[in-house]
């Protein structure tokens, strides 16, 4: 999967026709083999752009910040990123007419070890669902499968899960990198911030980490697209995908196989309801 040449061509063409102000893509980091996101403002910088299987980050995250708001933006999206973009469009966070979207028929990106990433193995939609131009041959929608870690943890007893997650919450340092790296966490003020100040005895404790991560994942339930930007950003390497995958599983199994961001105009699972939703847990 190497679309470097095509992306350079497209970005150059867009700049020379003055269709965009900013192009969001990837460049080589210069320090190691990895790639970092880059915002290109001028035609002469277009040569920096690359796209290979190491282009792991979700670039739609950069649409929520000031430097791209109300500007004409071109960007590269893979399958999962395009689902996030779809949700951002539906939730009126970006304007479609300001965007030029280069969709990728993704073949999966690699993780830190150089293997195919876990979320790509379980990917349900590798092709971009919203695009102006598509690179590669689309392979279509795939069948949903329950995450292997979730299956393993579900088989365990309650007490084992408790000890496992106690360690997870204990290792969280409350840096909020997960929140800042998530394209769907765009609120200006966040309810989990009331726990940040040390004055309130809340910062950086297991308790505040529990409060922050649980609230965060429940606010993303039915919307998370499994791009794993949060996990890549986490300095403590917490398995944050477990919380999201658990919610995704519950939503898929109980709410008419709902999957976030698949259809244009479809909001999250909690913006609609059905008469046949499960009711047996309510007294």
């Amino acid at each position, binding site marked *: 999967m190497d679309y470097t040449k095509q992306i350079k061509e497209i970005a150059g063409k867009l700049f020379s026709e003055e269709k965009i102000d900013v192009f969001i893509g990837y460049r080589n980091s210069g320090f190691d083999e990895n790639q970092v996101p880059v915002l290109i403002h001028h035609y002469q910088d277009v040569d920096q752009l690359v796209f290979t299987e190491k282009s792991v980050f979700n670039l739609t995250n950069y649409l929520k910040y000031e430097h791209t708001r109300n500007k004409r933006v071109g960007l590269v999206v893979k399958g999962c990123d395009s689902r996030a973009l779809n949700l951002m469009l539906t939730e009126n966070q970006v304007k479609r007419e300001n965007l030029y979207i280069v969709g990728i028929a993704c073949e999966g990106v690699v993780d830190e070890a150089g293997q195919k990433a876990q979320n790509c193995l379980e990917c349900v939609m590798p092709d971009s669902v919203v695009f102006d131009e598509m690179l590669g041959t689309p392979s279509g929608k795939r069948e949903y499968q329950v995450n292997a870690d979730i299956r393993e*943890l*579900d088989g365990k*007893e*309650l*007490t084992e*899960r*408790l*000890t*496992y*997650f*106690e360690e997870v*919450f204990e290792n969280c340092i409350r840096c909020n990198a997960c929140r800042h790296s998530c394209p769907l966490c765009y609120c200006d003020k966040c*309810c989990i911030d009331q726990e940040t100040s040390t004055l309130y*005895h*809340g910062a950086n*404790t*297991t*308790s*505040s980490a*529990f*409060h922050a991560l*649980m*609230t965060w*994942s*429940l*606010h993303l*339930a*039915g919307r998370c697209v499994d791009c794993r930007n949060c996990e890549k950003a986490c300095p403590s390497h917490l398995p944050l995908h477990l*919380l999201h995958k*658990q*919610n995704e599983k*519950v*939503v898929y199994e*109980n*709410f008419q196989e709902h999957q976030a961001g698949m259809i244009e105009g479809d909001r999250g*699972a*909690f*913006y609609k*309801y*059905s*008469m046949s*939703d*499960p*009711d047996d*847990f*309510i*007294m």
Partner: protein
Amino acid sequence: METEVIEKIVSIEKPHLEAPPDWQPVIMGILCNWCSYAGSDLTGTSRIQYPPNIRIIRIPCSSRVDPWFIIKSLQTTADGVLVSGCHPGDCHYISGNYYARRRFLVTKKLLNFVGYHEDRVQFSWVSAAEGQKFANVVAKVTEDIKKLGPLRLYKKENS
């Protein structure tokens, strides 16, 4: 409920602390204004007794309940949470409790996934005419929480 499982949970949640003999659970009751709150009112005016462990908050509709409320309650003072609203089809705002129902399921499953016993957070539909049912629900929840003991998991230090 299996007593073994409960004993295990109790031993993990409070490794060095036994529940004091006169301990009483604190239950956060989040009730919708139009049905359950009126129902609890009816319980009172009908002079039906129910356990005094529940602390009631009145909210406009059960769909006002952000999962955050439940998490915040568990993290601070509460040993258990009871959320109650109108029966499906009876919502004052036509469909609020249908939206709420979806959120409740995901919240309950996620809390269970990270190690909370499923009886810690309970939900019920109580209409304004069901004074007796409200008393029964509160009695059941209180009994369940008493069996599980005080919640000491992820508690704020100063609560």
